[in-house]
């Protein structure tokens, strides 16, 4: 029995510990002000405040909730094709999620739903990662 507040806080901590990511933040919209960050703070992973829906109504006011989060990764690459940098970071994120797919027991599953193509131009690139998480919510507690 958990809630989104704990899950998103834990996700930010876990993503901040991914090898190669220097900053993990939570933002409300995808169009946050990236110009407030320095080169040293990149790669930066922004966890955008997710949508949430009931995946399954259960007995005793319990529900299985689906939390659909999008993460936006911003990174520097001083070359035309950032494939190597991109692959290294994405692999590290995948490994981190694979190592702890229940986020320390907070959720029942987390998986990468979709990965966008690389956007941006040299030297600032970005990529979107869609995450799907499921957790049990006790509606009597909320």
């Amino acid at each position: 029995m958990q809630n989104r507040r704990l899950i998103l806080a834990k996700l930010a901590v876990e993503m901040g510990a991914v090898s190669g990511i220097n900053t993990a933040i939570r933002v409300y919209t995808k169009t946050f002000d990236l110009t407030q960050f320095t080169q040293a703070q990149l790669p930066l992973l922004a966890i955008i405040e997710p949508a949430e829906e009931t995946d399954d109504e259960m007995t005793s006011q319990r529900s299985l909730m689906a939390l659909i989060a999008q993460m936006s990764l911003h990174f520097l690459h001083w070359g035309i094709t950032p494939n190597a940098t991109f692959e290294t970071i994405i692999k590290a994120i995948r490994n981190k999620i694979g190592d702890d797919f229940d986020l320390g027991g907070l959720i029942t599953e987390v998986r990468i739903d979709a990965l966008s193509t690389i956007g941006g131009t040299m030297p600032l690139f970005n990529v979107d990662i869609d995450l799907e998480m499921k957790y049990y919510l006790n509606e009597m507690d909320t």
Partner: protein
Amino acid sequence: MPYYGLGTKEEILANIDTVLNAIDGIKFVDYQRVLASGIGPEKYPGSFINDVSTDKERLLKDLYRNVFGCSLVNWVWATVEEKLATKMNAFEVIVRGKIMADPTRGNKAYDTVIENISTDGGSRHPQGMMIINTAIVYYSVD
């Protein structure tokens, strides 16, 4: 080859100065001038490097994308035996070729684009003037 573009306007101007001074037969290179007033025929052909404009776009707190407008005012002098148009055209080919030989300005710019070239159409015979307008894209930390 790593494709960098991080530099300063001063480094880019210094590169252009070096490139122009290395042109075989050029007699005079100066900054921020348009008219060749007071310059005798012995100092032709010559080139004036003009810092015209800079458009800055903030990408990060310490990273900017700049479009630097730089005008090269070039002068030739035709003797009685020489045809001014031929001499001017030949000088234009040389200057343009040298400037575009390394559009990265010694790895200090992302790209150099020649936006337009105009001449005085022979109205100052035996002097001939042409302007090469360039746009130089570079990244900077401030």
